[in-house]
């Protein structure tokens, strides 16, 4: 790292800040001093030297995500991420040749088991099997093979050293070890004490040089449990999955990163091997180190360890799919175990597109407690309890998303209409200067807040590099600050069209878990605040006598007025009765 870049990071900005107008911090960007190095095998190395804490946060990003899969093996990028922790020839086993033998024998059995699975799926299609995933649906032959397979697992356990990869790091002081997969990238990271750089280099280069995918099938089951947890058992998971598919259509963003159920349970180790050979070649990987090291030393050591990995024979195939222009608005109308809400997607632009910056600013103008959505829909018309929006620039495409939860007595449709009203205002008139400046001030301050320590810096570099270019970490700030009110208005006009949006509305599915519903839902919107005030008075009243008097008065007037009023009085009476019963307990 050059002395100059370090100086920028350490710069005490008091004088600099004092020179700014009261207006704020426009244009002030805090650079992250990244240096880039390309290794002989094509691997990219990014270093951020920082001597604030005695640690090094290290990670790498493989430029592959679920968008690089194909139907039939969806979920493989993510499964693969799990497999990268299973060890190497020397980590994870006491007897590598035997380990390889067992893995080969397991694969043979699994080939036959897959053929049995095909039979179950065929029976399912004919209607002979109700649920191909239930244990009872397995064929007799499958069970035999499974027993043999378990025998091999038992044999393998005798020589297995469980999760040794993790143990080496843990006993070496490593922490926060984890990895993630998204539609665009797969990232791996950990923090180690500053004296353990070489341990990190050894571990990471070994698993890229010669990973061993042992315990493949148990891990596949783990991933399926992850799917049950995130998608199948969560209130909105399965709807969200369906909505993504609706929005992206045939584009690879349409299938879930977790994979579809049938694909997850069919992926083979051979699929994984082929996937690794293509997408985990060094020329498709960027290694990143942030923390307490000397850059020249770290470069030399990184070369020594990572240049052992030969350049991949095959280049990564180019990514072809473009998002299909959407001809008409799409809607998903769902009933779920959730509060009524609306979720709107518009097709926008990918990472680094020139319009992504005004769209990002626009998202911020809409969001937060001083944003337009909150002011109009939560505080103003009061049709929503919460609402927010934002631009999500992915590598190959982008989406602008606005969500809103309907306030009691209002519908998702009202929230939706309210959202469109706010967007129409943005098309009609340019945003006032002070409002734009407020949002820009927050982006500028964010440039500092993101630099608190090594680990968050690493995560940000992984993110932008995974999306396509680490330089974004230092260039986005100025581009955001350059956005004008005219830009915001232009992108509002360009992207917020009826035919480019997909709308998901959710209403609550009534069931045993929703409760007595002795609440305000039955009242007209104008009655609700009145009832809430009354309810509050009732609850703070401690004299049973007084409550009874009020009850009597209410009961005398029960028959007066229209139907709307009767509902109100009925609830009033019920609240009084409940409170009296509570006090008499």
């Amino acid at each position, binding site marked *: 790292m050059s002395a100059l870049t370090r100086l920028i*990071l350490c710069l*005490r900005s*008091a004088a600099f*800040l004092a020179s700014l107008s009261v207006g704020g911090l426009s244009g002030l960007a805090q650079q992250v001093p990244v240096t880039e190095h390309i290794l002989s095998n094509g691997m990219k190395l990014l270093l951020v030297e920082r*001597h604030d*804490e*005695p*640690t090094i946060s290290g990670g790498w990003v493989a430029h592959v995500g679920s968008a690089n899969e194909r139907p039939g093996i969806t979920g493989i990028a993510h499964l693969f*991420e*799990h497999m990268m922790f299973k060890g190497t020839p020397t980590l994870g086993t006491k007897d590598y040749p035997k380990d390889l033998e067992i893995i080969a024998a397991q694969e043979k059995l699994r080939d036959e088991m897959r053929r049995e699975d095909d039979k179950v799926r065929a029976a399912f299609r004919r209607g002979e099997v109700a649920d191909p995933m239930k*244990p009872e649906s397995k064929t007799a032959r499958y069970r035999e093979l499974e027993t043999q397979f378990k025998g091999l697992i038992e044999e393998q356990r005798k020589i297995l050293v*469980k999760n040794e990869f993790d*143990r*080496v790091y843990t006993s070496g*002081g490593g*922490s926060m070890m*984890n990895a*993630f*997969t998204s539609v665009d990238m797969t990232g791996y990271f950990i*923090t180690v*004490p*500053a*004296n353990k750089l*070489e*341990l990190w280099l*050894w571990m990471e280069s070994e698993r890229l040089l010669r990973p061993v995918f042992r315990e493949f*099938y148990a*891990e596949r089951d*783990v991933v399926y*449990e*992850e799917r049950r*947890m995130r998608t199948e*058992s969560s*209130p909105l998971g399965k709807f969200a999955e369906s909505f993504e598919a609706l929005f992206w259509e045939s584009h690879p963003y349409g299938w879930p990163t977790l994979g579809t159920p049938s694909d997850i349970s069919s992926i083979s180790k051979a699929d994984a091997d082929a996937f690794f050979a293509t997408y985990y070649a060094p020329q498709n990987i960027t290694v990143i180190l942030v923390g307490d090291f000397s850059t020249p030393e770290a470069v030399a050591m990184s070369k020594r*360890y990572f240049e052992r990995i030969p350049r991949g024979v095959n280049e990564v195939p180019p990514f072809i799919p473009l998002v299909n222009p959407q001809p008409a608005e799409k809607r998903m109308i769902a009933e779920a*175990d*959730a509060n009524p*809400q609306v979720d709107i997607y518009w097709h926008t632009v990918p990472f680094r597109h020139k319009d992504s910056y005004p769209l990002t600013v626009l998202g911020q103008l809409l969001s*937060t*407690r*001083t944003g337009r959505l909150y002011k109009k829909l*939560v505080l103003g018309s009061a049709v929503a*309890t919460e609402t927010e929006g934002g631009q*999500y620039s992915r590598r190959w495409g982008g989406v602008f*998303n606005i*969500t809103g939860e309907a306030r*009691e007595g209002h519908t998702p449709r009202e929230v939706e209409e309210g959202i469109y009203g706010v967007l129409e205002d943005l098309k009609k008139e340019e945003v006032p200067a002070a409002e734009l400046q*407020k949002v820009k*001030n927050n982006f500028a*301050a964010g440039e*500092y*807040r993101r630099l*608190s*320590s090594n680990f968050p810096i690493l995560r940000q570099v992984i993110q932008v590099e995974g999306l396509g270019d680490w330089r974004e970490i230092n260039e986005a700030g100025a581009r955001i600050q350059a956005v004008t009110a005219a830009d915001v208005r232009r992108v509002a006009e360009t992207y917020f069209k009826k035919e480019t949006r997909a709308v998901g509305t959710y209403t609550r599915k009534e069931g045993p878990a929703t*409760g*007595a519903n002795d*609440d305000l839902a039955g009242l007209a919107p104008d009655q609700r605040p009145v009832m*809430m005030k009354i*309810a*509050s008075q009732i609850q703070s009243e401690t004299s049973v006598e007084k409550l009874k008097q009020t009850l009597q008065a209410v009961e005398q007037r029960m028959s007066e007025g229209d139907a709307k009023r009767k509902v109100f009085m009925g609830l009033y009476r019920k609240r009084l009765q409940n409170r009296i019963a509570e006090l008499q307990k």
Partner: protein
Amino acid sequence: MNHRLHSYLFLMNARISSPCRPAVWLRRSLQWIAPGLVAIAAVAAELPIPDRPEKLTFAPLNYEPPDPRVSRVVLKAGPVAYVVPDRELPLVNIVVHVRVGEYVDPQGKEGLSGLAGHLLVRGGSASKSAEELEERLAFLAASLNSSVHESKGTISLNLLSKDLDEGLALLREALTAPRFQQDKLDLLRQQQLQAMKQRNDDSSDIEDREREALSYGEKFWLNRLDTQASIEAVTRDDLAAYHKRWFHPANFLVAASGDFDRDAMVAKLETLFTAWPFQGEAGPAVPADLEFAAPGLYIVDKDVNQGRVAVLLPGILRTSPDNYAIALMNMILGGGGFTSRIMNRVRSDEGLAYSAFSMFRGGVYYPTPFHAGFQSKSRTVAYATSIVLEEMKRIAQEPVGDEELETAKRAFIDNLPRRFTTKANVADAFIDEEFTGRFAKEPDFWKNYRTKIQAITKEDVLRVAKKYLDPKRVAVLVVGQKAEILKGNPEHPVDFPALLGGRVVDLPLRDPLTLKPLNVENK
């Protein structure tokens, strides 16, 4: 609301693993000595790359945790402050901690603390309406937030150092003269009511609620949850009275970190707390009158295809002399992520769960239970539970391995610097010691921490496992499809009720607005 656009899939569940892994709950440094990297690299370059990582050699990392006494200041105005300058970035972070919590909420007004805590800042102040205050904060890109949780209240200010004086004035006004606008109370109450309606939507929320009920008893203050009636009973006057009663300097502690000169900050804090306009009361002690559930299998029937399981046992206080041995025992059993036994068996061996863990941390004010948990498809819930119970028995019967114990110790010892990663972390760590009273008794807690961990033996681990992991006292909570779960898996037959002494208790779902048991006769 919409998490899928920004959520990624992770290898392991960080939320679950974080409370039990020192890796995550320990963070960073003040004084340390830079390692001789240049020297190591020079030597290493001449040697071939070894086949095993143990063959690498490393320079020692000499690290001492920061000394709280260096930063501690007793303000003339009353509060104890920890002041930690950090000139790297032009930001200042100030957090006022308040001795108050949900345990002070009166019967029938559960939720008062939460409402008052939130609205202290969000409800406006004497000179500024809530809207004006929000606008000003947003323009300054400053954050000013307040909340009261279980056993603590906080008001935090984070802003650019150029705006410090204005921020402190806003903070003072929020602390001394909140406006508690009625419209903001109405709005928040409405938002909370709607949040309440979701209480039975997610099986994890049901699990959390019923787990607390089993761990502490329904009458314990932690389980006196807000209901529609209780939050409707809270008036604006209640908020104002709550504020005057608890929010005064005798109940405050302050953490300040960031871009300032130490003495100048101390002077500013004196001004912040001087001449308080009202007298309050000292916060009462946190009640500890809990009641752990009778042993047995407790089931909440919920139609989701993955059952959630919590294996519970009565817990300990942090002051227990067994605490260090328990920490290591738990690390080996289920607290250490991939290096722990429960994770290895339930997840890696059998593929029965994505997340599988145990936690056993001494409570600060009341004993917090042992808790092992996982989520598995309905038909393997019983089998996976049997494995967890088996591992609990095993660690109480056989001494742990030398290597296992050493790995667990290293995880605690080598990760100590991560407790103190940023100066804000340092200030937070010190405040936590002071707030919970440990500083007064054990000012060198963090200094001595590694030595105490190092001193634990295999025998200690075995002893505490025997003492605390008593199979006869286990209560297991399951949330999921009851019939499927009890059916089990033909390949791994397990008599689930018999596993827990034969006692099965059906827990009904509760009405989300009243928390009274719901009739579920249609199931």
